[in-house]
């Protein structure tokens, strides 16, 4: 007797081990927190530079974190850490950088233009696409409010 699709889905749920959420969440918490402490130290450093505005200091922190992430990714260190840290290394801006840099390394073998150039944002692309789409909509709303006022 062949089992039906609905019955089988129930069976699969029963047989599939779940992720160890408590442990994963704790690891994500403290690794993500540590990256933010590093970010805070950098922010304090750049804030103390007279020629930078606060917004520019925030951007400078991002640039440094992206650089560190790129170096770690290139040296093959990011992946083993991320395997342990999960969202702790995914959610900070370092995770965004890792998605871009790892794609660059991977698809370099298909050429600088046809591989690297085309595939660079193969994972991180949606972040930019929907982030800027959302900010555009927000901008239009702001403009309408401003025009009406």
């Amino acid at each position, binding site marked *: 007797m062949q089992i039906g699709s609905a019955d089988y889905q129930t069976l699969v749920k029963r047989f599939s081990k779940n992720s160890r959420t408590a442990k994963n969440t704790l690891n994500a918490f403290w690794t993500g927190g540590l990256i*933010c402490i590093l970010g*805070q130290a950098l922010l304090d450093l750049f804030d103390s530079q007279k020629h930078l505005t606060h917004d520019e200091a925030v951007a400078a922190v991002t640039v440094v974190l992206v650089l560190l992430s790129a170096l770690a990714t290139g040296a*093959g260190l990011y992946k083993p850490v991320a395997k342990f840290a999960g969202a*702790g290394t995914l*959610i900070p801006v370092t995770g965004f950088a890792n998605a871009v840099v790892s794609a660059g390394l991977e698809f*370099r073998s298909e050429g600088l233009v046809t591989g690297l150039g085309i595939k660079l944002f193969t994972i991180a692309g*949606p972040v930019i696409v929907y982030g800027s789409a959302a900010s*555009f909509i927000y*901008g239009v709303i702001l*403009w309408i409010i401003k025009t009406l006022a």
Partner: protein
Amino acid sequence: MQYLLAFLIGGAICAAGQLLIDKTNLTPARILTGYVVIGVVLTGAGLYGPFVSFAGAGATVPILGFGYSLARGVEQAVERSGLLGAFMGGFTATSAGIAAAIIFAVAAALIFRPTRK
């Protein structure tokens, strides 16, 4: 104190992401995208700005902060240039981060090779 806040808040934002990974079928790419859009929405609602002054890097380093920068950029640009600002602001404010990702990625790809794990 600011460091403790950055640790706790930043850590909590990451832990929430981990719960989304483990408890839902959302892929990491969807979670990142969702975080950025939520960052824009919260900033637009006037909530994220005060949160950033409170949590510092704990609020700007997670990818929510990318959404915050996008929205802040749009606010300033619309103020300055009207509707055109809605097109310009997001990229202007995040240009450093995006350019850094592109430049360092190309540089890394020229120097390093992927290794087997």
